[in-house]
């Protein structure tokens, strides 16, 4: 059974058809890339999957369970972790608190536990602190754990955001342009981090990327989106040699 299955998903913003008849089958452990020019509707697809917008038509299923109509926090709790194209971090919280916060729905104490600082509350806080520290180490940002996110270099902020997404124990990880604004050096490091996370946490990944080198290297399957429609789908080699893709997308951009 497919882990994430999307059927004929269509979405209108007013009169604008931002996504039309989008289909996806994501198998466990796979990495799928989503490429396309600016405004193609890639981020919108993520927002539709995670429940921020409700699709006008179509179906989204995670492990056979329908996701349409659920709140974003419920969908996230079912195992959909994501990052954002333009970093949505909490500016008054430190790095460790970011990752702990994503363990919110796993906390096994309630309001009364929090009010009275019960033993269970302390144990749970300790447990998620350990878990968060482990994730921070995986993403190489443990050294910043007690700093506010705004004081971190840009690349580190991106990695904090990924660590945070991993803390919800996702089955599917949605990465929206994880290397935007990174130097080639940072880019290579990001590739190895994603590989390692993919292997260690056995998570399926759907990623949006502009840099071809990155998608070609990581993904088993690539979809090309133009004006909300998938115009080509296939292995990196197939995509690279598809004339339509070259015309719509690669032709205008730097292929490296």
């Amino acid at each position, binding site marked *: 059974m497919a882990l994430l299955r999307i059927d004929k998903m269509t979405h209108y913003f007013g009169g604008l058809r931002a996504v039309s008849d989008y289909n996806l089958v994501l198998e466990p452990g796979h990495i799928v890339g989503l490429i396309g020019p600016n405004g193609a509707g890639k981020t919108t697809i993520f927002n539709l999957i*995670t429940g*921020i917008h409700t699709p006008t038509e179509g179906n989204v299923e995670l492990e056979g369970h329908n996701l349409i109509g659920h*709140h*974003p*926090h419920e969908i*996230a*709790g079912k195992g959909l972790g*994501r990052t*954002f194209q333009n970093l*949505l*971090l*909490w*500016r*008054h*919280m430190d790095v460790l*608190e970011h990752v*702990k*916060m*994503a*363990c*919110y*729905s796993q*906390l096994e*104490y309630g*309001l009364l*536990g*929090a*009010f*009275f*600082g019960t033993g269970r*509350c302390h144990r749970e*806080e300790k447990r*998620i602190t350990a878990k968060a520290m482990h994730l921070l180490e995986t993403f190489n940002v443990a050294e910043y754990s007690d700093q506010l996110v705004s004081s971190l270099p840009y690349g580190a902020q991106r990695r904090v955001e990924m660590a*945070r*997404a991993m*803390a*919800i124990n996702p089955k599917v990880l949605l990465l929206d342009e994880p290397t935007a604004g990174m130097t080639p050096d940072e880019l290579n490091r990001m590739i190895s981090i994603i590989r390692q996370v993919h292997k260690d946490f056995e998570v399926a990944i759907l990623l949006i990327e502009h840099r071809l080198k990155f998608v070609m290297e990581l993904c088993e399957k690539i979809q090309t989106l133009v004006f909300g429609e998938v115009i080509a789908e296939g292995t990196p080699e197939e995509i690279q040699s598809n004339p339509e893709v070259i015309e719509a997308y690669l032709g205008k951009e730097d292929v490296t």
Partner: protein
Amino acid sequence: METKQETPQRAYKNLLARYKAFSNRIPLLGWLCGGIGAVLIEYFLGDLVSYYLGLPKVPVLFGCLIMLKKPILIPGAVGYLLLVYGLPVFFIARALATPANKLAAFLAKGPITIAALVHLGLLYAILHIWTDMSDYRVLVLKLTMIAVMLTLSLNVINGYMGEFSCSHPGFMAIGAYTTSTITLWLFANDKLFGEALLPAAIGPFFFPLALIAGGLVAALGALVIAIPSFRTRGDYLAIISLAFLFIVKSIIENLEFVGGPRGMSSQPNYSNLPMVFIVMVLCIWIINNFVRSTLGKALCAVRDNELAAESMTVNTRKTKMVTFMFGAFWAGVAGGLFAHVLRYVNPGSFGIQRLAEILAMLYFGGLNSVTGSIVGAVSINLLSEALRPLEIFKWIIIPLLLILVMLYRPTGLIAFTEFKPKELMRSKE
């Protein structure tokens, strides 16, 4: 050899540095012992000292009232402050630094509850002895502690959660009227509810339950605001909560069975000093536990970026509703205490002016900080009491002060800090 000139600034800096070095060695326990010494000295020698300094009587509120009324007595009042408070605290804290540090280290090894109880016991002793001298002090202190509860609970909503609520006096009113109704009906012979139903002797023990009931009814009131306000994104809360404040007031004005515009009076004297102190400590403790837990930090996540919070499994709507009701609960409890401190309430006590006061204390002290709320409530409350002789000018000075703070520290004096009791009580050696 250095040949730097001794300028006043440098002298001041030196003094400050030396004071810092000195105070860094003294644990909280030492300061509390110093405080006990000071209030004991005032208790036994206060009359004598004020007589020799030419003061008419013991200055009741740190000499502020005397100084403002009769400037000629300023030297005497300052001398009194130094002799009775400043120097004793300083010397006792220094003399006891070593044993106090040892005791603090010993307490730190045990459970934090015991250490906290020792500190709170000392603090209570100071307050008790200090207020034993005059009824006016008792009243000011009780109202200050209630103000701390109000400010802190509003901070949870306006600071931690980043919404803007105006309905705190309304919740306070609900709490005050609910609690008063219960105590008057059950334990007092009064004109509204007639004979007492239960023996008055069990009243004081029942009072905490009445307070909780007041808090719960206030929380129910909060639910009425929360349902429409947090349904969609957008800033409806400020408007809806303001409307709520007026509605509560006019409902109470029209409810004859709680006295209408005349209000309720002769509540039993249940809000004694230990009662108010214990409830305030509980309030601070519970709120501080909450905002330091991950469950409570969800408030900050919701405030800083709601979309990110929601995408990280935080149920933002529930978080907002629960928090709003939580804040209202404590405002209700504070209102119940308030009614039994003044032993008289009328709808006029819970209007816009009260809201302005609470907001001033909150924004002066600092958003998102328990310490800030305590500092803000205590300082604005004492200041407004101390400036009373200036009458109308008081309402110029306090807003000016607030504007200054807002200019230099837009989020308040002590904003965005965590209140860590363990740190506070640790040994300094």
